[in-house]
């Protein structure tokens, strides 16, 4: 025999080493991707978690005649530099709304301003040494403390960091998503049903299919250009409104829903259709009563994933003007509104250091929502997954 096992094994040593190297390198690549993710989340948590806390100061508020004219008079002089200006500014307003307040006083926790808040969280700030020691003393005495930041969830955007919250953006997101789903879900499912169950296999059908695959890969910003030119400039949909944003995102989500619905319809075996045809159902009855109910979990999963995608989208919304400064919660589909990712974008552009924390906090909320949505979709698929 020309080669003995020993000869071959000798030569193989080198090749086995090379082979093992590929395994380790590829494992390392996957590890690297995991590491990126880990670093990313660690960084976001590190930057964003402080946003859920806010420093408050316990102070006496005197609703006096002077305070109505100059609000700073309402609180002790030494606290004026600490309390948030937005709190001070709102005092005369409260007095005007409630006549009975005049002459009374009360003890209340007020927001402190951004600089002090940042100092207490150990971040970069512009306080002087004396100011810092003064605040440290107040913390000792329990007059100033960090507590859960309700404002972040109950207020809209604000130019002062301590008052800025995500409520307006959350409401805007919900409204925009309602528009998006209301348009893209029925049209998407109808298109998929047509292509999968009704369409003849001809040139037009193929053109529609290629076109849908292509739409799924078109940069999102181009959908923004479409929204601007067609919806806003041509049809006169109000700029910055959830309607304009929702319609634009609907077109973007459409291919996702169509593609996943088609996959769901395709996974329903033909034997079901044949059985239904066999008992005399018409094509539409087969689809309505047999195929669609069986495909529904798959359709829902795809739609949720599409929704999550649309929820994180920013670029086309910037183009249709949804980056406006929105301090108040929107009330209608045609008024200017903002959405979570757009709010994050706006905050990321603010020069103040305190807004970095707000941005990361908003990001954490958004990521939590998106990950739950995706996890829900996965669970839905797992629960209803059926092997035919």
């Amino acid at each position, binding site marked *: *025999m*020309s*080669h*003995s*096992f020993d000869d*071959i*094994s000798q*030569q*193989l040593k080198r*090749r*086995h080493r090379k082979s093992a190297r590929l395994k380790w390198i590829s494992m390392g690549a996957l590890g690297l991707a995991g590491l990126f993710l880990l670093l990313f989340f660690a960084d976001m948590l590190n930057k964003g978690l402080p946003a859920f806390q806010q420093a408050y100061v316990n102070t006496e508020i005197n609703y006096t005649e002077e305070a109505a004219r100059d609000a700073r008079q309402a609180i002790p002089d030494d606290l004026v530099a600490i309390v948030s200006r937005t709190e001070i500014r709102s005092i005369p307003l409260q007095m005007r709304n409630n006549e009975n307040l005049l002459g009374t006083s009360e003890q209340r926790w007020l927001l402190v301003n951004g600089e002090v808040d940042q100092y207490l969280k150990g971040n970069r700030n512009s306080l002087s040494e004396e100011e810092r020691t003064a605040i440290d003393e107040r913390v000792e005495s329990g007059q100033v403390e960090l507590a859960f930041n309700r404002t972040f969830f109950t207020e809209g955007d604000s130019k002062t960091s301590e008052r800025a919250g995500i409520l307006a953006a959350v409401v805007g997101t919900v409204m925009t998503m309602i528009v998006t789903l209301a348009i893209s879900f029925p049209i998407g499912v109808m298109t998929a049903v047509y292509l999968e169950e009704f369409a003849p296999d001809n040139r037009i059908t193929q053109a529609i299919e290629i076109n849908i695959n292509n739409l799924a890969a078109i940069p999102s910003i181009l959908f923004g250009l479409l929204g601007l030119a067609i919806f806003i400039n041509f049809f006169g949909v109000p700029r910055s409104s959830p309607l304009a944003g929702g319609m634009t995102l609907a077109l973007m989500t459409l291919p996702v829903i169509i593609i996943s619905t088609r996959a769901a319809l395709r996974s329903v075996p033909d034997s079901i259709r044949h059985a239904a045809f066999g008992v005399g159902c018409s094509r539409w009855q087969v689809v309505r009563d047999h195929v669609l109910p069986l495909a529904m979990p798959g359709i829902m999963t795809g739609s949720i994933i599409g929704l999550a995608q649309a929820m994180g989208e920013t670029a086309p919304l910037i183009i249709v003007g949804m980056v406006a400064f929105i301090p108040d919660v929107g009330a209608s589909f045609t008024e200017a509104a903002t959405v979570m990712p757009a709010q994050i974008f706006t905050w990321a552009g603010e020069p103040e250091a305190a807004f970095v924390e707000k941005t990361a906090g908003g990001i954490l909320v958004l990521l939590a929502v998106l990950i739950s949505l995706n996890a829900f979709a996965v669970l839905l698929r797992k629960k209803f997954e059926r092997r035919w």
Partner: protein
Amino acid sequence: MNSQAPIMSEQDTPSVGQPYTRNEQACHDLSIRVRDLSLWYGKNQALKNLNIDLFQKNVTALIGPSGCGKSTFLRCLNRMNDLIPSVRTEGLVEMDGHDVNAVKMDEVALRRRVGMVFQKPNPFPKSIFENVAYAPRMHDMVSRKAEQDELVEKALRDAGLWEEVKDKLQEPGTSLSGGQQQRLCIARAIAVQPDVILMDEPTSALDPISTATIEDLMDRLKEKFTIVTVTHNMQQAARVADYTAFFHLGEIIEYNDTKVMFSTPAKKKTEDYISGRYG
């Protein structure tokens, strides 16, 4: 590998692993010795205490109804079953004085000496030339371009494909017809100069003419190699094999000289099978 197998005289009960009847023209140098080989897929036992001696420069055919374990057995000989995680093997498969299943046996080295041709032709997505030249080059069997060309031509000639492809060596292997692809796979296997070539139903995906070509080829190749082939087709076994082993439910029922087995089978089950009572 000169350990001569003991030649038996005419006996009704041959020793374990030996064929019932000797084929007088065949070579009887031992190539692979199998003793008490059992194999499990998870909890299902697929092979039960197999004993068989496979002889050099012979064609041995494995026949039997589907699911009887003949392909599984074939894959034990070059440890292709290692690729299936749930498989567990016990027993001895000995080649060239080495236990094939031993921990220190390198399965890559083993496969180099025990080549394999599959049911469906599976040429690599490379040119015809590269399909043949790739393995010898990786095994450092050739050092110069001229050597390589020579080796490729020789392997293709041995596989009876040279005349058909010599003008299109750079075309992809997949451009050939099914029968040509299968011969390319055989050329690929013999280019490595193995001791044994395993063939797993090599003609089941081919038309009758290609099948005949490959059968002729097997007849020529046994001058240089030990060939073990699995086949569904009893006529094929009768045509090409020196020895035939009949498998049934994971056991070897009968191992015999092919002519004897098909004319006067020793066991009732064998007779039932070859006379078409089940299959």
